[in-house]
């Protein structure tokens, strides 16, 4: 194992999605993307809906769609907590695209209030999943 790696854990309420030694991590922080390398200072950051990218020790890049949450880094363990998270490879692109269209349609109707907010979030989630898959 290379000595420039650290642990990444992606945890959802239903399971631990992944637990791996990685080289480099980029998360969608609520104020912009954050890059994490080994020996990062302890940090707690809130995340927005988006795509989390990480580089494996063999230089391959993997993507995971996350639905917001937060990340905590301490002692070379980065733990990402999200309500839902999905590997890019296992995203059902057709379903994600259908979800995007549904959300766009609902937004086009321009009804104010909670449903509008929900449609916006659904749209962001769908876009994140499509991006993670590509």
């Amino acid at each position, binding site marked *: 194992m290379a000595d420039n790696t650290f642990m990444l854990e992606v945890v959802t*309420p239903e399971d631990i999605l992944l637990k791996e030694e990685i080289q480099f991590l980029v998360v969608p922080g609520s104020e912009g993307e954050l890059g994490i390398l080994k020996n990062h200072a302890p940090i707690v950051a809130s995340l927005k809906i988006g795509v989390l990218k990480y580089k494996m020790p063999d230089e391959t890049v993997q993507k995971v769609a996350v639905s917001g949450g*937060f990340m905590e880094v*301490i002692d070379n363990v980065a733990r990402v*907590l999200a309500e839902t998270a999905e590997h890019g490879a296992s995203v059902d692109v057709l379903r994600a695209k259908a979800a995007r269209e549904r959300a766009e349609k609902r937004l086009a109707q321009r009804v104010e209030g909670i449903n509008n907010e929900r449609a916006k979030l659904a749209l962001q989630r769908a876009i994140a999943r499509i991006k993670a898959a590509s």
Partner: protein
Amino acid sequence: MAGAGVREFKRRIRSVANTQQITKAMKMVAAARLRRAQEKAEASRPYNETLQGTVARLSAVALDVKHPLLEKRDEIKKIGYIVVTADRGLCGAYNTNIIKMANQSMEDIGGAAKKTVIAVGRKASDFYKKRGLLAADFINLGDNISYVDARAVAQYVIEAYETKELDEVFLVYAKFINVLRQAPTLTKVFPLEPPEESEGSAPHFIDYIYEPSAEAILVSLLPRYVGSLIYNSMLEGKASEFGAKMTAMGNATENAGELIGSLNLAMNKARQAAITDEILDIVGGAEALKK
């Protein structure tokens, strides 16, 4: 007639044995589902514990954070109860115990405040619908609880609390202790009280960077924390339900066994009595011929 009594017994024994077979099968099914439910609860632990730890640490750092979910209301007019029960019966006193605890608490607290119930599970929904207390229900969730179900419940109560539809919210569910014991538990959800930092957890003198700030992160985590509280209670509830069902069905199987035993005894007695009667008849007849 001799054979009639015996035949009646045979019929009943067969029917009890059939029931026994069904209860035995239900017990085994409950055991399998209990194991699955426990695995699920186990799988949710890392998320819940990390979230709880972080919320505790953040609320120790961000002291003056203001959030509608943390706000205590001076006047409590409406109290909501999230009551988590099963969709189905046949699990002993499981549902009754939970509903009993909720009712007790409704009598004890809040005085004249109006009480409403958010039912999770059909048993609670049916019970409170009859009494006109039902505000919303979440039923037919199946045995495989997903986080999405819990989030729907959380979203409903968060909205109700923020719009002042409810001024206080309690959660009633059965905590799983072991197969034989499920403890009905009542906890307060709103106003939200962040968990205390437990002894021996990560010491908070570690100088974290908070991005964007401790307050902002805490605010974004509070709704998720509510979701995880409810998800957790639903998982515990499922495990408890199957534990209770296993015990109930185990008892039913045992009782059926006892019943079959006593029916067998009664049947043999009736058979012997019938034989004795017949012998007496024959002997009596023979005696009469002799004369």
